[in-house]
């Protein structure tokens, strides 16, 4: 099962009711329209019309290639390979919530792809990915934290996975996953009103580190 299909399956588990509006993200590129046609859908012009309307109304979402349309189309379309339905909700619901869901799903896909690349690189470099580290990374970053910004993900010489979020002001959240819920953290946070960078480093359980991130005002790096 591909990562895309995995995300889709989770969304698919939700009950569908009535005349709700659905948002899906096009996860592939290039030949998607061909694939829809190949699936015998013949909804090409309708989709293009919907995309045009939606993009004009919500330009920020346009970059994510968001489509929106009505219930009957969704089941068929979302079943096509390469499509991921993020969430469905009533038309009246805030579009920012949809954008956030889309961003989180997109980040999740980016993270999964990077993990896959890291595994391949590790083999090529004669390194190993520590299982306990990757399990924690998947559990806490992908499962619990659900970041809206994709961190830089690196593999350390000890086999541990490290995630790093940073901004243009020199602030950062660096988390090395050491297994059993332990994290080695390196936080650079701007102080006010001094505007200098304060460094916090150490090893703690993930819950305590997340609390530190919140108190340091660094949460925006992860969820902006």
């Amino acid at each position, binding site marked *: 099962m591909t990562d895309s299909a995995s995300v889709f399956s989770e969304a698919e588990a939700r009950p569908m009711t009535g005349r709700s509006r659905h948002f899906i993200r096009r996860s592939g590129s290039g030949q998607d329209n061909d694939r829809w046609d190949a699936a015998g859908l013949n909804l090409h012009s309708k989709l293009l019309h919907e995309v045009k309307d939606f993009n004009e109304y919500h330009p920020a979402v346009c970059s994510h290639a968001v489509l929106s349309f009505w219930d009957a189309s969704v089941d068929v379309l979302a079943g096509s390979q390469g499509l991921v339905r993020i969430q469905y909700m009533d038309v009246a619901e805030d579009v920012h919530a949809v954008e956030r869901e889309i961003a989180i799903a997109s980040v999740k896909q980016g993270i999964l792809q*990077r993990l896959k*690349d*890291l595994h391949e*690189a*590790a083999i*090529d*470099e004669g*390194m190993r990915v520590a299982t306990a580290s990757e399990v924690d990374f998947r559990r806490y970053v992908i499962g619990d934290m659900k970041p809206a910004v*994709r961190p*830089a*993900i*690196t*593999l*350390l*010489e*000890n086999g541990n996975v*490290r995630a*790093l979020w940073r901004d243009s002001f*020199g602030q*950062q959240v*660096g988390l*090395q996953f050491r297994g059993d819920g332990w994290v*080695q*953290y*390196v936080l*650079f946070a701007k102080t006010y009103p001094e505007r200098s*960078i*304060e*460094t916090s*480093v*150490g*090893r703690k359980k993930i819950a305590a580190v997340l609390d530190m991130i919140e108190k340091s005002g660094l949460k925006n790096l992860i969820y902006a």
Partner: protein
Amino acid sequence: MTNVPLPDADHILRHVKPTAFDNNRVQGAAFEWRRKNANDGLSCNWMEISEGTTRDEKIEYIRSRRRLIWKKSHKLAILNVGSVKAAAKRQMDALGLTLSPDVIHDPLGADAGQAWVADPTHALVIGIPDSDSPQAEAVFDAIAGCVQGYVAALNDA
């Protein structure tokens, strides 16, 4: 001229594996190192002392001296000596570490047994923590913040 400090205005190259490169940036993991002896440091190459007149020629010469396996997916990070020293010092001061970072020339002789040619460009960043401590990781991140750019480790041409 072993152990001579490099001028602050000069530049060093650091070899980077793909596991330490993400989001189009060289990450702190690229500066991980483990001390083998008391005089050891973070291995790098001194660009200005390399043979050649242009930057590309100097980088090509450094490529020709390599002792590790460099692959197409690898990069060479370019850093300014003065910036590395200042960033490492600033970070270590913040952490309460009393080390004095420096970048010194450490030319390597030829080793016929290993089929290695001499590498007169080799240099070391010394006076920084090594291994896997949180303090070391913070210093590596600070050094990564000094990366001015990168080039492919191997020249396709």
